[in-house]
């Protein structure tokens, strides 16, 4: 496809065949070999009359030859160029390829410190954003309380339907299974000490105080928190939120407040249903696997738990819901133009809210222990 012939101090390069994109891979080494060759010649001619098809790739490779030789002070002449292709060759001749500025390579230590610094700054700014959002939501709810007509009831009902009502089956199923597994494991290990019956205490306290609300919150963060982030994020990307703002609406009031209130209403209900379902699953396994009759289970349960046990779980639920809602909204509003950013923030929304829910649960445990609940 590219041959060279040298006569005296004249070098003739003959290009032939199709010089197009699909042949570029084969042509490039040939061109490079010619461009690198250091034959002592005075004049170079590139005969392109044999080329039957030429596109930008081919024209550029010819241009590379031309540039390589002109750098050595020997301007090559292109001969036999069909008129159809002269425009293309001219166009490519004007292309100005400058080497890209090389990326600054940093040392390993610098890079490590850089990453740590960025992460810390990220945590700091995320905290600020969460606080700002909390403030904005408080202001919006204060306004809604002062002027209830402004509150978007329809939107609230729609979100409760999605977050609460549609979430019921999966929550019931998951908590039922968790209760059943807890009972099975408890009976299996407690039996060694002849303490089967204490499984009821364990399930009762664990489910009502901790597991019920935790499982429901993790599920809600994955199911609804991520959906909130993705919705708000794509609305942000398509400038829908800007549109709302220019029409004089506050996005926090219109979009975020109904979503967060829907979570605060739904999560306690889901927690209650989930706890009941877990107790039911635990009781069922205790009966079928552990031989603890339902009436024994119930009377033992009545002794083991008090209203406080139940209250501890239920008090936590709306606060966890608020945290999930705030984090989801913050991440949604932080989405920038790209699809990748939407993905990153949706992931962050779920990870951060689950993390905060667990941290908060630990703080609650300390708090309730110190007030003796």
């Amino acid at each position, binding site marked *: 496809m590219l041959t060279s012939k040298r006569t005296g101090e004249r070098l003739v390069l003959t290009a032939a065949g199709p010089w197009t994109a699909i042949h570029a891979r084969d042509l490039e080494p040939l061109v490079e070999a010619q461009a690198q060759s250091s034959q002592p010649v005075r004049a170079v001619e590139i005969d392109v009359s044999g080329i039957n098809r030429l596109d930008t790739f081919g024209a550029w490779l010819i241009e590379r030859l031309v540039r390589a030789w002109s750098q050595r002070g020997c301007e090559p002449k292109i001969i036999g160029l069909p008129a159809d292709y002269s425009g293309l060759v001219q166009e490519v001749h004007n292309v*100005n390829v400058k080497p890209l500025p090389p990326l600054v390579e940093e040392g390993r230590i610098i890079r490590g410190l850089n990453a740590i610094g960025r992460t810390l700054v990220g945590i700091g700014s995320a905290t600020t954003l969460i606080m700002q959002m909390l403030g904005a939501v408080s202001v919006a709810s204060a306004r809604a309380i002062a002027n209830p007509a402004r509150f978007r009831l329809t939107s609230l009902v729609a979100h409760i339907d999605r977050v609460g009502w549609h979430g019921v089956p999966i929550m019931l199923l998951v908590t039922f299974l968790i209760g059943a597994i807890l009972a099975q494991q408890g009976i299996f290990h407690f039996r060694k000490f002849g303490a089967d019956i204490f499984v009821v205490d364990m399930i009762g306290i664990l489910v009502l105080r901790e597991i019920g609300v935790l499982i429901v919150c993790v599920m809600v963060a994955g199911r609804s928190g991520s959906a909130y982030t993705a919705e708000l994020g794509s609305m942000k990307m398509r400038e829908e939120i800007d549109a709302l703002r220019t029409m004089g609406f506050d996005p926090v009031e219109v979009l975020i407040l109904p979503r967060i209130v829907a979570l605060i209403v739904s999560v306690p209900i889901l927690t209650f249903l989930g706890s009941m379902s877990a107790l039911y699953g635990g009781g069922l396994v205790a009966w079928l696997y552990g031989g603890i009759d339902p009436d024994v289970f119930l009377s033992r349960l009545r002794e083991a738990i008090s209203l406080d046990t139940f209250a501890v779980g239920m008090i936590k639920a709306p606060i966890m819901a608020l945290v999930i809602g705030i984090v989801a909204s913050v991440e949604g509003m932080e989405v920038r133009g*790209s699809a990748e950013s939407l993905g990153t923030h949706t992931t962050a929304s779920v990870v951060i809210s689950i993390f905060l829910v667990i941290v908060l649960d630990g703080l609650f445990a300390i708090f309730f222990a110190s007030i003796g609940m």
Partner: protein
Amino acid sequence: MAKRAEDAVIRVRDLSVGFSEKLVLDHLDLDVYRGEVLGFVGGSGSGKSVLMRTIIGLLPKRSGKIEVFGIDVDSITQTELQKIEQRWGILFQHGALFSSLTVRQNIQFPVREFLGVSERLLDEMAVAKLEMVGLAPDVQQKYPSELSGGMTKRVALARALALDPEVVFLDEPTSGLDPIGAGEFDELIKTLQRTLGLTVFMVTHDLDSLHAVCDRIAVLADGKVILAGPMSVMLASEHPWLKAYFRGKRSRVAG
């Protein structure tokens, strides 16, 4: 000048496309000849984009035949179809640039996937394509969300041209551009068409574009191509819709 049938790069025969009850394209025939710029016009919602998307295989058809480069696209295997797909480039209405890649990566993407050329050639071609569409090489490192509307269109055109296709489909290339930008874009399409020997299928509403760049215009109405020909034929037609479109208030007689 009578064009021979074998000159048709795209040949659509008896094509019907519909969604549920509604038939959008009703037994439509269309030819696009090699080396021409075909402007495709029609009222909003008349199915211009549907036809384009059907030809490039994004929408299923109910009946009819589509031939591209003389090959019936229904009768070939996936690999052969992929070969054809490398011979056309598409400029989507909103650019459809990959938002998580930089401009350079966007342009290099199809080349990297299909041609397997060296990294150096990839970089050089990206610059060459950017300069050909009239952009400075320093936009390479930018992300699509940082580009203005006109730049997005130009980058999208550069990506459509990345593999040096024989046919390019342009979906409303000048929509959303100011008149000066639109004029420059028209000029650009014409220049590229001439230098690269492209066949251009252009869906447009821009009367200035139709005057400036199109060799032939096809008009879609009621699911059919009601008229195809150069601007003079359009202006001479007495069809009420064509009269309103080409000789209405918003049109000017071409100078």
